[in-house]
């Protein structure tokens, strides 16, 4: 143990009670920081996982038509100024099969599925509801979504085998009081057609579960009177984090508007981030109190120990040693506080993740969703270290500036 740490430890143990405030606030600050980050990023991760499962990593929609204006810069010059005046979008994908075959060449692409979407009304014997139908090629779509895992009633095999089969979301099915095998009528543009429930799925994402009905692509084509083309092509990737780069590449190659999930879900992702940051700031108040308490306690110890400071200085301890002695005291409290705070945070995170706490908002889950990440711990501890150390620096530097002669004569300021 270094002499300075040894002295710091002894000064500190003589002032245990005074340090308690700082210590307990450090524990709370670190612990609660971890808990809030674990829950907010838990929900974020859950959201991302759900949304990737339903909508895939990338969507290709709308053909881009550039309107260019060319002009010659100067006579005889090789330069041509090409100015992009604006982009016109043509809704939908004209040649889905062709695009899918191009897309499938990309190494990171796991699957691509053409989807035809339309707004409809659903009527059961009980009531009527607005909904969206999605015409899909089941095998393609299973490769770009986790629909298969989300089936709660009925079976996909039944859907495969029957053209009038439909996959209906849990919330919508409940609203229309539809069970597996029961039939309902779909209205679209004056056309009506009867389908039956092959299976009911539940993604946990309410917006989807209350509105989306999956039909066979051919059935959807004739219902929506769209014999060719698709509304969009849904793509799943092996590495979803690389979606923005892949999307940009695809956009260039295909001349279609290609949106990665990070852009598509920006609103929600931004909301999650804001929530995560604001909760971090809120619980940092504890760390702030810890640093103020540390400032206070150290200032007190400096006052009480001026004589000891003079003695240390008289026997060759430098100003830097005096600073260190006081910074070490903060360091010891921080070390204990961070360790206990991390344990406390982990404990509460674990408990929160276990407690049955059904949530039924934009998502449906049975327990609080928590994410375990070393980053939360590092961030929590780093925040505490920075704040407490900065607060400690003031009394520590003050102690170091004291002149031994002034202390001995009792004229130290």
């Amino acid at each position, binding site marked *: 143990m270094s002499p300075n740490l040894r002295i710091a430890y002894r*000064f500190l143990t003589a002032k245990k009670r005074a340090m308690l405030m700082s210590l307990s606030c450090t524990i709370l600050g670190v612990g609660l920081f971890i808990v809030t980050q674990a829950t907010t990023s838990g929900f974020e991760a859950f959201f991302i996982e759900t949304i990737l499962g339903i909508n895939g990593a990338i969507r290709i929609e709308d053909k881009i038509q550039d309107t260019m204006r060319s002009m010659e810069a100067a006579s005889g010059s090789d330069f041509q100024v090409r100015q992009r005046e604006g982009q016109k979008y043509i809704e939908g994908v004209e040649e889905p099969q062709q695009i899918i075959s191009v897309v499938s060449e990309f190494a990171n692409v796991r699957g691509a599925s053409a989807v035809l979407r339309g707004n409809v009304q659903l009527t059961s014997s009980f009531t009527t509801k607005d909904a969206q139908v999605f015409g899909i090629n089941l095998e393609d779509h299973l490769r770009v979504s986790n629909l298969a895992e989300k089936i709660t009633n009925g079976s996909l095999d039944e859907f495969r085998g029957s053209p009038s089969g439909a996959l209906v979301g849990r919330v919508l099915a409940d609203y229309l009081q539809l069970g597996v095998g029961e039939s309902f009528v779909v209205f679209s543009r004056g056309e009506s057609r009867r389908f039956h429930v092959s299976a009911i799925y539940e993604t946990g994402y309410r917006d989807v579960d209350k509105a989306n009905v999956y039909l066979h692509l051919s059935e959807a084509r004739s219902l929506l009177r769209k014999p060719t083309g698709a509304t969009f092509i849904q793509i799943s990737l092996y590495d979803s984090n690389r979606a923005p780069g892949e999307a940009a590449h695809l956009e260039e190659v295909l001349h279609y508007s290609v949106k990665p999930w990070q852009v598509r879900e920006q609103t929600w992702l931004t909301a999650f981030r804001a929530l995560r940051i604001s909760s971090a700031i809120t619980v940092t108040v504890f760390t702030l109190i810890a640093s103020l308490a540390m400032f206070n306690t150290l200032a007190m110890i400096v006052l009480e120990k001026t004589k000891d400071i003079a003695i240390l*200085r008289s026997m060759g301890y430098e100003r830097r040693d005096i600073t260190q002695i006081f910074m070490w005291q903060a360091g010891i409290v921080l070390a204990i506080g961070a360790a206990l705070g991390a344990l406390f945070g982990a404990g509460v995170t674990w408990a929160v993740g276990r407690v049955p706490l059904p949530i039924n908002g934009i998502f449906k889950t049975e327990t609080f969703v928590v994410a375990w990440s070393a980053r939360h711990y590092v961030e929590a501890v780093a925040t505490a270290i920075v704040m407490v150390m900065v607060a400690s620096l003031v009394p520590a530097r003050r102690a170091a500036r004291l002149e031994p002669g002034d202390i001995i*004569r009792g004229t130290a300021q």
Partner: protein
Amino acid sequence: MKPAPAVVSSVRGELALRCTGLHRYLGQGEGRVHVLKGVSFEARRGQIYAIVGPSGCGKSTLLYLLGLLDQPDGGQIEINGHLMSNSDDLARTAARGAHIGFVFQFHFLMLEFTALENVMMPMRKLAKMPVGEMEARAHALLESVGLGAKSRRLGTQLSGGEQQRVAIARALANEPSILLADEPTGNLDVKNAGMVFDLLTSLAKDRGQAVILVTHNPEIAQQCDLTRPMRDGVFV
């Protein structure tokens, strides 16, 4: 303490400390006092010096300057041939640690530490030997001031005189060439005062240290090699 080494004879008589024309003002504004009015002084290794004089004449003030704990307003201080009065805080601190032992007139110990830890404190900073050796040396020093049995006691569990003796042992920890002691026998009974003085004398004679002590005790002053009487901020 271990027996004196033979090298001592070579250093004995060497100039350890020299100050010339020291001035020091204390206080502010109306209360500003000219405490030291041009003090010059030399101390050689192997000699023991006594500074005597009435209370308030500036003895402690002079000792703080010589111990590099305070800065003079005028004049120069040389320690072992190096001019220290102009040097920076770091150099003066290093000189304090390596060359000077200081015994304060009051407040002697760091009270949260045991006698042994107090004595080891300067050694730990200097870090010139393994901890085991430091501990053995600290024990020997405490033994020499008659406190071998109380080395594990906290500062708070020692009497004023005992604390003073621990402070003397601590001042000797790094074998300084100069020992400055402000009334080292002030709180001691005759027997212990005699013991401490004998220790200081033997340090000067056997180890070749320059010992400068402030004392009110005429008997002790008489036994020193040189006595410098002080009055009103100057040697007389």
